[in-house]
């Protein structure tokens, strides 16, 4: 048993070092900072100055009474739910389409969908900045003006009359466009691994295309669906880069474009530079992420899919 333990440790060690150095230690540090009043990186003065749960209490009051923070929480919920749906279901639909059509067209089609992912963040952000720009020069505005659909330019992401839905629609759309290709690639390669005979067998058994999709293709990539769902859920909870650009360039409303992750980032590094408070919010975010991740695995019955190891060490 001791020998097995040593062997297991040997194989786990490289990853353990990475996890400890880049996840556990920062996490402990963040938790530590969350109990200090650290602001403006005055590390020498404030890092050992404990204030107990003050930051968490502040966070609680903010969540209870601050209307802007309410918007952040709502936005987080809407953003994660809808973008996750687009990323998983949209990715699945795209993968099925590209799987069923001719290989050459399929390749071009998949490349097209990968473009947003290959485009540098700033360029991609700029693209949508121009597209949704509120003045008459904005791409969407100028197009609609020329068509005569609208008479005067619309401030798409910031006009109070259309908030919060317009801002939410924009952030979900822009992020979904980037995220959907991830599921598409994973599902497509999973489909390609399904033996051809299974599809032929289903055809001979009398299955139409829709039935092949429902009874063969989708059930056979169940593992991949769970993986993509959990992965995308956690990335959506914690990622903020695209949102940062959209908010910073005023493509969307400040609060209806800010999720909790972006809020933490802005609080720590950008607006008020209150690292202690941001750390407390970050800790809460980690806890939410962990719980949601586990719940998702539970809902999708991950434990039933784990098979015993293929070999002994």
């Amino acid at each position, binding site marked *: 048993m001791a020998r097995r333990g040593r062997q297991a440790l040997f194989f786990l060690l490289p990853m353990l070092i990475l996890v400890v150095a880049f996840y556990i230690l920062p996490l402990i540090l963040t938790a530590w900072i969350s109990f200090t009043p650290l602001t403006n990186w005055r590390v020498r003065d404030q890092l050992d100055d404990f204030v107990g749960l003050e930051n968490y209490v502040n966070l609680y009051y903010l969540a209870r009474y601050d209307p802007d923070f309410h918007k952040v929480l709502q936005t987080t919920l809407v953003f994660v739910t809808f973008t996750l749906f687009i990323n998983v279901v949209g990715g699945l639909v795209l993968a099925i389409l590209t799987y069923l059509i001719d290989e050459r067209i399929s390749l071009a089609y998949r490349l097209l969908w990968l473009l947003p992912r290959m485009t540098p963040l700033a360029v991609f952000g700029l693209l949508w900045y121009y597209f949704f720009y509120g003045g008459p020069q904005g791409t969407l505005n100028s197009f609609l003006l020329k068509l005569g659909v609208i008479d005067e330019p619309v401030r798409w992401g910031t006009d109070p009359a259309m908030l919060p839905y317009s801002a939410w629609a924009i952030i979900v759309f822009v992020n979904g466009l980037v995220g959907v290709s991830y599921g598409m690639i994973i599902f497509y390669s999973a489909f390609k691994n399904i*033996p051809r*005979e*299974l599809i*032929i*067998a*289903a*055809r*001979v*058994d*009398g*299955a*139409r295309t829709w*039935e092949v999709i429902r*009874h*063969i293709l989708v*059930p*056979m990539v*169940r593992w991949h669906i769970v993986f993509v769902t959990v992965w995308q859920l956690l990335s959506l909870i914690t990622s903020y880069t695209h949102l940062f650009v959209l908010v910073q360039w005023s493509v969307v409303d400040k609060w209806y474009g800010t999720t909790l992750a972006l809020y933490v980032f802005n609080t720590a590094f950008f607006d008020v530079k209150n690292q202690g408070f941001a750390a407390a919010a970050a800790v809460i975010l980690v806890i939410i992420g962990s719980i949601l991740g586990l719940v998702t695995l539970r809902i999708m019955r991950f434990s039933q899919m784990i098979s015993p190891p293929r070999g002994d060490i």
Partner: protein
Amino acid sequence: MVEVRLEGVTKRFGRVTAVNNVNLTFGDGEFTALLGPSGSGKSTILYLVAGIYKPSKGRIYFGDRDVTDLMPNERNIGLVFQNYALYPHMTVYDNIAFPLKLRKTPPEVIRDKVLEVAKFLHIHELLDRYPAQLSGGQQQRVALARALVKEPEVLLLDEPLSNLDALLRIKIRSELKRIQKELGVTAIYVTHDQSEALAMADKVVVINRGVIQQEAPPDTIYNEPRNVFVASFIGSPPANIFPATMDYTEEPCINLPGGTRHCVEDEYAGVLWRMKPSKVIVGFRPEHAEIVENPVDGRPVIVGEVYTVEPLGRENIVTVASEDIHLKVITPPEVRPEAGELVYVAVEKGKLMLFDPQTEVNLRYIAREWSQGG
């Protein structure tokens, strides 16, 4: 059930012609084996019958019904694959029930039919398992059950035994034949294994490069191969084939390797006189010859040196080198000549096969066609 007919069927994949102008009839209730090396087009023919491929030219009929343009699900066929192609995420029960569910059969009927076919194939105790929990032989039966539950008019089998171990293969081989006869279903069986084809089939169709080489009952295929390809493909080891020159001074005689001569039997004499080829291709089966110390009686004899002896227990395979030709002879186990020993290979009377060097067709068939043609 139904008769399956291919009329002038050609299938091209890009520039490759996989099946070339095939006319073929699979008899109603008959067990037909499509036999050929890999890449010969035998599986393509099966998939054409299944409707997975559309012919580039020609028509396919099930009885009087033209099915050329019908989808696989409109043809009422059962198909069993080499790797079984069971749906891994479904239980055995669901696998077998799948084709019925797609036909919107009422659940009670599905239940009865699945149980019936499962009992018939002795897999009724495995219905709750998943394919991964079954042995190769059990998976094979499930695949067969899934094909049979539809009560197909035509049962298509694509090398269904080649993933099984040797013992199981022989066991399932006889079982499969019994099942086919019991159900009276028209069966088409693709294989590259000649022993399977000869053992199971009512009729064997030998295919090479997309062209039918011979279409006949197993013993005809074995004893009277239509051409050099069939002779050299069938048998284990296959027939000895070598070229020889002819001599027509008095009667048609073959100059055999090693310097002996053999004057041909009457059945070949006529056709040889008429064609007068300067060369022929000679063939005989290893089991139709023996090693003798002295040339006797009128049997064709070839002189050569023993090259190798392979003892197989029940028999020995002796390879004899004569000039630059290697001949294989199956001998009783006690016949064990030394390598390098000078021996005579005597071929049984009437077992020497002669082929036209141009077309590689068996002269016996040419003679027969001439006598029929008048």
